[in-house]
């Protein structure tokens, strides 16, 4: 017998070994039972912890959420508008206290000058 013939027969034997293994049903059942158990554990596991809210979200929540934040913003804008366009009214409502604090310069005297027509400022 030649070496090639030996080689060929060994290859045939090895190839037949590939098909020789049959999987018993009992083993399949055991493996599938393991799979079901692991899968159930995976599904029951709690989801990974979510990242906490950022600092902006915390401030928003402290102010009552978006409605609260809108109210605070609106009040701030209104106060600023009153201060710019009717500083005397604000001074009057404060009982003249603002004039005392600012040395009768008004709350925003320089800005008020900017609105005077024809001003060179």
């Amino acid at each position, binding site marked *: *017998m030649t070496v090639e*013939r*030996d*080689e060929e*027969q*060994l*290859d045939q*034997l*090895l*190839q*037949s*070994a*590939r098909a*020789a*293994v*049959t*999987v*018993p049903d009992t*083993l*399949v059942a*055991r*493996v*599938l039972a*393991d*799979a*079901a158990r*692991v*899968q159930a554990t*995976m*599904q029951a596991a709690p989801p990974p912890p979510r990242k906490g809210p950022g600092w902006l979200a915390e401030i928003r929540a402290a102010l009552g959420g978006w409605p609260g934040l809108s109210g605070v913003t609106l009040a701030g804008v209104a106060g600023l508008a009153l201060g710019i366009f009717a500083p005397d009214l604000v001074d009057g409502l404060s009982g003249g206290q603002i004039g005392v604090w600012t040395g009768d310069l008004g709350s925003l005297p320089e800005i008020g000058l900017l609105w005077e027509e024809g001003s060179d400022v």
Partner: protein
Amino acid sequence: MSDDAPTYAALRDGALMVLFANGDPGAARVLTARLLPRALSHAARVLGDRAEAEDIAQEAMLRLWRAAADWAQDGPAAPATWLYRVVANLCTDRLRKSGQSTLTDEADRHSDTRPSVEAQMIAGDRMAALDAALALLPERQRQAVVLRHIEGLSNPEIAMILDLGVEAVESLTARGKRALSAALSDKKEALGYDS
């Protein structure tokens, strides 16, 4: 499962792993049908013990299920390659515990002086003769021969599984096959081959 079989059949093993992790019960059945025979065949040929091979195959599949949660579908290793590696390591551990993994490659070079496999084989049973001859090989060489010539894997795949270089795998498989041929050469008539 029969209604979904065509859908599953088109999916690669990695995609089935992701489906399994997402709770799809059919994915486990398809993966078992595809991979369990390979795991069992690999373990049976390396260990030469069917009952132990079944335990190893089950344990390897269990580890596969547990790995599904973190499985990257497009990761570097295919599930089959990953499973072969687990089986190889489990077989190595089992053989070491039983004291059957003490043979070295150096010892293999003198395998001609080992006892004949004739006493170990059942006359006319080629698979028993093959298992007996495989049992004479050093553990790493046996793993490489089984993966290359029985499981049909490529040398790069075997290198990944056994954590070796490709050249080392080529050397292991070549020497292993020569040793198998030598061990079986006197048994050709008993195995029903032309002499």
